[in-house]
């Protein structure tokens, strides 16, 4: 005898509206059907009506948590279409801002996960650590979330010595406070009981379902698009963080270790900033088609661009990582208890405004 229970779209635990129609029998979930479409803005069509330089600002506003990497991927696509080369200093600065975004996104996700099983104190403390990262972004670029510093051919602003010292001071504050909070999240008995063994995803299923990001790396598959070496990642030797286990605990551990890895990447990038100009000048209009990828905090993002020689693009297609992670979510939820559904959804880190654009 089964019952149909709607989870969402208004739920105190979800950051953005998403509905899952759960079929449950006696507190165990049998199947789930996702229903999305509550925040669809039609941005891909709107981007065809503005010219290709104004699109940088529009595509930055697809998502509020991973916004710099959206604009950076779009600029990488246009630069490949027009065969522009980016100066070395601009590549290092792009890495610095991308990693700052990755840190603030992972701290946000960890805080929401702690809130989902009722640990509000840890939620507030993690978000207070995140404020240091927001101050670092505001000091170097002028705004807390929508940085507006990436442009076609390079970056628009520079980081001078005083700003770099401020960022490094804030990063040591972040590291000190996170080292006192990590044992609470990873070794405390009450947290482990809720996270270990919940929402298992084995590696073969993860690959056929199209999982990306920490969802895939938490199941033992070593796949991180930063190892291909776009922007300045080739010079700043980088290796992915992988955990075996496939449950919510493994994905949490991947996210915490990635925050520490981002701190060390920013320190190395700011210590070795090369001297060059900030951007190459832009002439003419793009034409042709191109597909580029980059690594966002939640996984791999793909941009497909097609242009026809005028200043307005023909088609922009964005495939965000949460869109790819919803299919394995449906397999993870089968068989779990009703009280664990919130944790499994928040462990893939859903960003529904990215999913629906």
């Amino acid at each position, binding site marked *: 005898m089964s019952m149909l229970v709607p989870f969402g779209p208004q739920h105190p635990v979800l950051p953005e509206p998403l509905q899952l129609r759960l079929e449950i029998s006696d507190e165990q979930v049998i199947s789930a*059907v*996702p229903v*999305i*479409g509550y925040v*669809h803005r*039609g941005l*891909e*069509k709107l981007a065809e009506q503005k010219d290709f330089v104004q699109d940088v600002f529009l595509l930055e506003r697809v998502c509020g948590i991973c916004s710099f990497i959206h604009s950076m991927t779009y600029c990488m696509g246009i630069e*490949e*279409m027009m065969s522009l080369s980016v100066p070395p200093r601009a590549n290092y600065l792009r890495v610095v801002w991308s990693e700052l975004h990755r840190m603030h996104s992972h701290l946000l996700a960890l805080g929401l996960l702690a809130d989902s099983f009722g640990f509000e104190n840890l939620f507030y403390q993690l978000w207070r650590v995140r404020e240091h990262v927001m101050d670092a972004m505001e000091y170097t670029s002028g705004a807390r979330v929508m940085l507006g510093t990436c442009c076609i051919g390079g970056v628009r602003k520079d980081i001078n010595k005083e700003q770099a010292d401020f960022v490094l001071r804030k990063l040591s504050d972040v590291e000190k406070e996170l080292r006192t909070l990590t044992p609470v999240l990873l070794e405390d008995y009450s947290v482990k009981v809720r996270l270990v063994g919940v929402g298992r995803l084995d590696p073969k299923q993860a*690959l*056929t*379902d*199209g999982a990306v990001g920490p969802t895939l790396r938490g199941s033992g598959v070593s796949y991180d*698009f930063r*190892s*291909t070496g776009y922007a300045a990642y080739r010079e700043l030797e980088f290796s992915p963080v992988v955990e075996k286990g496939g449950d919510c605990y493994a994905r949490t551990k991947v996210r915490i270790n990635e925050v520490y890895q981002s701190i060390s990447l920013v320190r190395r990038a700011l210590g070795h900033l090369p001297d060059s100009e900030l951007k190459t000048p832009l002439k003419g209009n793009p034409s*042709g*088609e*191109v*597909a580029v*990828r980059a690594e966002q905090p939640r996984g*791999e993002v*793909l941009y*497909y661009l*097609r242009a026809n020689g005028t200043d307005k693009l*023909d*088609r922009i*297609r964005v*495939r965000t990582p949460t*869109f*790819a992670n*919803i*299919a394995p979510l449906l397999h993870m939820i089968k068989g779990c208890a009703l009280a664990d559904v919130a944790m499994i959804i928040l462990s893939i880190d859903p960003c529904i405004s990215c999913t*629906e654009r």
Partner: protein
Amino acid sequence: MLKVTEELELGNLHEKIASLIPRGYRFVTMTAVDAVDHFDIFYHFDLQFELNTFLLKLPKEQSLPSISHICFAALLVENEIQDLFGITVTDLVIDYKKSFILAQDAPVKPFCKVPGVGVSVLEKTAEGEKK
């Protein structure tokens, strides 16, 4: 520039895609573009960080067979293409019938070059003309 690995036809679509999965290809996404007299449907697959793209040229008014029984990850993308471009996709594992991402009273096929009109708009225009 995008390099298309192979062009597919409607007849051999299922065998080609079914032969890719055991060889280690990972499904990334599908893209639909409205070229004026037909639709370009791209299938993006990934093998060891290299993107392989397969192109299918679909004439307008023809329906697209789904690959969601071979590749579960393609389910959501095909429903979205059905909504936004007005293409009918057959044999989906979960079919949302053109209300996956658009609301009930939203305009029809908004992403085509000549977007369609919503039904409620037509009724209002008819009433206005009668008055």
